[in-house]
């Protein structure tokens, strides 16, 4: 017989859990616990998001007025460069894998931690160092004005802080590699007994596919940036045409990483969405294996399309054609996922709470982002659209409308799990609505501008674009307010929200079998393996006021313990 107090501890809201089992800054700074590392990562990427977000608002404010003098042209260049570089390297790439992934991945496997906890912590510190180096470019007083792409020959000629920034990106690359490597090994060797590959939640498939890219693509960025640093300091003549080098080679190297990197950004987001759609429709995910394999297909095909960023660079026509063709094929697995999500929604019992609102926004926005990618992948249209606001809108639809939206949705979904407290759903949805509408207001006009020829990365524009820029600026502030509200709602919930049980949403993947917040060792009792999309396996428990695995519903049965609990 398990008494009520123990039950509360095992499946409800325990008094002692991973957040408060040890105290003091050292217990965080030197922690090897994946959950704490995940939370530190979350704080880190949030700071990066706000910082780069402020840069973005400054840019948009500048563009609000025609012939604006708010920023000098130089400052404008530096502003968009830092915005892009910090957003890409310090925020989006680590966001879902390193923050949410770290929190959730080992628990979805029923494991106590990732395979290499020290490497995990090292990855976080590398993130800090790398981001610090990126920002050193500002502190050095020289700024950075190459765009996040660091294209040669300009990056060699400019005397802004390219070396700091590229070194920062290099270090961030290793941070990302370490996370990926850790996840690959953890999923391979630390699954619960009997948990085959097809019993993994789809979020893990997507994290696994992401990790493959992180491990295979990022080293190439690393060496490229080292070569760029060598070129800048010693003029080794590999990228610098003045010394017989080939600037386009840099573009090839850069995109060999950075195209796959866009899938590092989107694949984890897709994984989150697969979870949310299924849980909040309370319906088995439609076409599990299609979604699973499409992640892997995206990861692999993603390596073969980098040339679509270089259609106008002068690469050979044959290559251009091939890259264009493969670009179209990579859209197929993405479309497969969208189809499966829609099919999952069909006849589901849909709960329109905050995470689900984000998930639905994602489908809509990613749909537009992905489809406009096809416009850009088509040769003839891309010649017209390349380097215009159309491209800017495209990638913001996938990166913000996709990844950021999924990150927010995922946070709202797993927040009660890791803090044991519920957020204010109404305010959450208000935030989501503002994010969604602000986002569309910001970036939809940019499609129109781009197709009419407004070039990207310009500090001024033709008067005909004025209304679009103004709409876009207003939208940006609405978007900013939406994100801020979501942020406040979450932070408030973490400290002051009403307590909630371990599984308020009737989700079936393993992490929901722990208490909320989870124990330091994740599970006090051994989790029982069940199908992550079989929601009937979870039954409502009056005493705990939450859902609980059928196996644990009977208080007379004592659940097996993993090990003695001690802190």
């Amino acid at each position, binding site marked *: 017989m398990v008494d009520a107090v123990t039950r509360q501890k095992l499946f409800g809201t325990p008094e002692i859990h991973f957040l408060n089992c040890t105290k003091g800054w050292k217990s965080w700074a030197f922690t090897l616990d994946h959950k704490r590392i995940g939370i530190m990562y979350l704080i880190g990427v949030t700071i990066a998001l706000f910082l780069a977000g402020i840069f973005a608002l400054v840019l948009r404010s500048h563009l609000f007025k025609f012939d604006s003098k708010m920023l000098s042209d130089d400052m404008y260049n530096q502003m968009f460069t830092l915005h892009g570089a910090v957003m890409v390297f310090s925020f989006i790439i680590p966001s879902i894998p390193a923050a949410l992934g770290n929190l959730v991945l080992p628990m979805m496997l029923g*494991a*106590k*931690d*990732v*395979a*290499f*906890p020290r*490497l995990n912590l090292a990855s976080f510190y590398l993130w800090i160092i790398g981001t610090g180096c990126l920002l050193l470019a500002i502190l050095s007083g020289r700024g950075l004005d190459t765009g996040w792409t660091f294209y040669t020959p300009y990056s060699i000629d400019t005397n802004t802080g390219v070396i700091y920034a590229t070194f920062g990106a290099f270090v961030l690359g290793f941070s990302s*590699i370490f996370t990926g*490597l*850790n996840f*690959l*090994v*953890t999923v*391979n*060797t*630390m699954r619960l007994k009997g948990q085959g590959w097809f019993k993994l939640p789809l979020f893990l498939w997507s994290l696994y596919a992401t990790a493959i890219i992180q*491990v*295979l*693509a*990022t*080293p*190439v960025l*690393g*060496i*490229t940036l*080292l*070569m760029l640093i*060598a070129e800048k300091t*010693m*003029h*080794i*003549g*590999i990228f610098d045409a003045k*010394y*017989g*080098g*080939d600037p386009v*080679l840099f573009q090839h*190297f850069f995109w060999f990483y950075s195209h796959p990197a866009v899938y590092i950004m989107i694949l984890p987001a897709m994984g989150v969405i697969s979870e949310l759609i299924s849980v909040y429709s309370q319906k088995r995910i439609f076409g599990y294996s299609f979604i699973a394999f499409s992640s892997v297909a995206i990861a692999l095909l993603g390596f073969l399309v980098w040339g679509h960023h270089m259609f106008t660079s002068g690469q050979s026509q044959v290559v251009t054609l091939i890259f264009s063709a493969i670009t179209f094929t990579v859209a197929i697995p993405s479309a497969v996922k969208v189809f499966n999500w829609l099919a999952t929604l069909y006849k589901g019992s849909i709960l329109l709470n905050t995470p689900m609102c984000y998930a639905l926004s994602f489908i809509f926005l990613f749909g537009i982002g992905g489809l406009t990618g096809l416009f850009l992948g088509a040769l003839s249209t891309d010649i017209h659209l390349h380097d215009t606001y159309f491209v800017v809108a495209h990638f913001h639809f996938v990166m913000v409308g996709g990844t950021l939206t999924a990150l927010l949705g995922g946070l709202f979904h797993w927040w009660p799990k890791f803090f044991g407290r519920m957020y204010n759903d109404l305010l959450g949805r208000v935030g989501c609505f503002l994010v969604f509408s602000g986002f569309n207001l910001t970036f939809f006009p940019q499609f129109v501008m781009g197709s009419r020829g407004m070039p990207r990365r310009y500090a001024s524009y033709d008067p005909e674009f004025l209304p679009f820029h103004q709409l876009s600026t207003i939208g940006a502030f609405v978007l900013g307010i939406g994100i801020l509200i979501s942020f406040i709602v979450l932070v408030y919930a973490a400290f002051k929200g009403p307590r909630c049980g371990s599984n308020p949403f009737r989700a079936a993947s393993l992490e929901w079998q722990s208490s909320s917040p989870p124990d330091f060792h994740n599970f006090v009792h051994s989790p029982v393996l069940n199908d992550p999309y079989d929601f009937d396996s979870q039954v409502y428990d009056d005493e705990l006021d939450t859902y609980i695995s059928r196996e644990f519903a009977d208080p007379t049965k004592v659940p097996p313990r993993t*090990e*003695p609990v*001690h802190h």
Partner: protein
Amino acid sequence: MAVADTHEIHDDHHHDHGEFIAHHFDGPEQQFDSGKLGIWLFLVTEILFFGGLFVAYTLYRSNHPEIFEQAHVFLNKYLGGLNTIVLLFSSLTMALGVRAAQLGKNKNCAVYVLITMVCAAVFLGVKAVEYSHKWDMGILVRSAFNLTYTHPAPVTSVGKWLHVSDYLVYISVIPTLLLVGFLVASLMGKLMEKNVFSKFMLGLSIMVGGYFLGVGVGLIFMDVAEGGANESHASIQTADQPLMLHAMTQETREDASHDENHDKTAESHPAADHVDGQAHHEEHAHAGGEAFSAHHPDPEKLSRNVGIFFSIYYCMTGLHAIHIIGGIVVLSWILWRSLLGQWRSDYFGPVDYVGLYWHLVDLIWIYLFPLLYLID
């Protein structure tokens, strides 16, 4: 606290050295498998990391073959070959070290690992000789490339005394300091009766000794290879003395536009090969300096981009050397733990992982050597 922790948890495992099993693993197998997969993945990232440079190499070699044909003669095959043999041998000792650890023979493991480390240091010593020699000759990366056959006379007193390049003296400062530091530490350990520490430091001193061995052997090899100059060390030669094993016989030109000349170069290639072959022949026929003196390429006639070859050479070998140094660091850790006697037949993972890393570093050199030194 951590140690007490793990003991408590793993009481039920009945392994007499449960202290080496991290708390989040179910048992030694899971830990070993994770480590093994982890290191393999790490090696994959290493291959891709070097891969960028190999791609750069391939592109430049196929687009501008003349640069490679003109430049490779400046690399000393004998030194490269020597280093290849040293590394191959070190892979053997590494493998033996892993075997010893698997059998729980910690002493043997320590000896093999130490030999591996010495080999690594020898490698670096030879590399230092090569690098300093090139720097003397102005063989630098593209923008600084300024070939000259007149060597600057050494100005440092050590350089004068030993008749070696100043650069070699500068490079050797750190190993010298390390050697002194390790020896002192070893002695102190002895006095304070910290035996393992003392032995470990002695091991590190021996390792650094390997560096000086490498420098010495490297200098002798260079001497021999270059036909025994009048002076005792090859790196201080005067303008009229031959430097290269065999030289460019192919007609070269200052070509700004390689693409236009590309076809011509390709056509003339077989002929060049032929002459080159002869040069080879001669080289064997006449042991001694005079066989080469006719062959050293005129700096004026080299492609102005010939330095790109050396940019690539320095990037690749430099990155590789950094990996050798990293290897020495992790091998030292293995040496330390071997001296502590920590390996057992069911716990030897770290030796295995470091061994795999070491083989990869070796393997990369096996590619670098022919690609850079043996172009013909």
